[in-house]
């Protein structure tokens, strides 16, 4: 999926929330197959929670596509330490 969304002039660059996909073997928990675990992480600590702007949504979309393609027993989405996601990235709205 390619999406070109341009932020308003003068708006700060989007802090992109990456979506990392990792296989978790469920055998030790008494199940078969893998859990595809998606971690949302913008690379900052908890004082800058995960947010979603255009590129972050693209990243999440492709992560879900990637996770599903692995034919997992389940897909789960989690956040970085202490933070799932705060919602939309509002930093560009003032511009």
């Amino acid at each position, binding site marked *: 999926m390619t999406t070109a969304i341009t932020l308003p002039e003068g708006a700060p660059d989007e802090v992109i929330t990456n979506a990392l996909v*990792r296989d978790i073997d469920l055998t*030790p928990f008494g199940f078969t197959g893998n859990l595809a675990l998606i*971690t949302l992480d913008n690379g900052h600590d908890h004082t800058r929670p995960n947010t979603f702007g255009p590129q972050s949504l693209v990243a999440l979309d492709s992560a879900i596509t990637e996770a599903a393609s692995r034919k997992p027993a389940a897909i789960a989405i989690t956040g*970085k330490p202490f933070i799932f996601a705060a919602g939309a990235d509002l930093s560009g709205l003032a511009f």
Partner: protein
Amino acid sequence: MSDRATNVATSNSVRSVVLVDAVRTPFGKAGSMYAGTRADDLMVRAMRGLLERNPQLSPDAIDDVAIAAATQTGDQGMNIGRSATLLAGIPKTVPGYSVDRWCAGALTATTTVAGAIAMGAIDIAIAGGVEHMGNHPMGELMDPNPRYLAEKLVEQDALAMGATAERLHDRFPNLTKERADRYAFNSQMKTAQAYADGKLQRDLIPTAARSAELGWGIATVDEAPRPTTTMEGLAGLKTPFRPAGRVTAGNSAGLNDGATAALLASEEKALKLGLSIKARLVTFAFAGVEPEVMGYGPVPATIKALARAGLDISDIGAFEVNEAFAVQVLAFLDHFGIADDDPRVNPYGGAIAVGHPLASSGVRLMLNLARTFEAQPQVRYGITTMCIGLGMGGTVIWENPHYTGGEK
């Protein structure tokens, strides 16, 4: 004598102390699978896993928490015993403290709370240990007093554990590199077999481990074991502590990250609450030796503990000996006339395979011994023993609560 004084209850009777349960996190290689995980979070995970396995115990009934770490700064500082208790969500009314006896930290946390239970000051306690050797490399911030060397209080080798192991080889020339390698190989094979049989996984608490690059993961098994180890491979490893030495990365425990936690109680309280009883503490002893041969410590510690217990080495049917170095286990076995491959010794392998996160290892020995007791009701007594840097050994003697009589 005042009325008040006469009313103070005093009792010199010693109460029976039992191991209710013990667990650990999977052990990682230093700074590898737990590179993005804090030491205190590992400790919290072990404690929570322990409580989740024992739902009959209300956390507010815990009287004290003793947690060991060899390096008590940063994420292992701030009184890790109290800090981990708060972070684990245990009620704030439950106190906690920290213990240090280097590698025997968790063993000492156990014996210390056991002493308090035995004399009746407390009924139930958590004892454990943690070491994140990735975050806290050995010797971090260590500042030995110059008198150590200036006045020759100890020899130069005393502060480098690998060098102390070479010194043990020197002292006992019959402890050859080939024997050490063979012992290490067997440790790897026993651990591989224990994993294949699902024996070790039972006491591992799955632990969330995050990597900034990969996202969250879950550690469910030890990272360090090398089931593909061969004698030829071991023979070819470098001897980093001495040119043409005998101590290698293959016949030593590695550098590791991990945490352990044990629940101890008076036998009376455990029975009252319906808690499991996995081992009964008989007695314990610590002993000192020359720091430059610290690996010999388990020998005098065990002699002392056996004497206190009125037992003979032949009464011991199960041994959990920490494997800091193969040579140190062999020195112990030779002293007591036990074969290198005696099936009573470390049946699930040991630290050479699964790793040795310093202060946490004592409880790992206990949980393995508890499994042996469960599987072998004909065994009455077992010991957990380990060597300790700066020249010490510690030994705890346990009685099998499942003992059914018959042979020892």
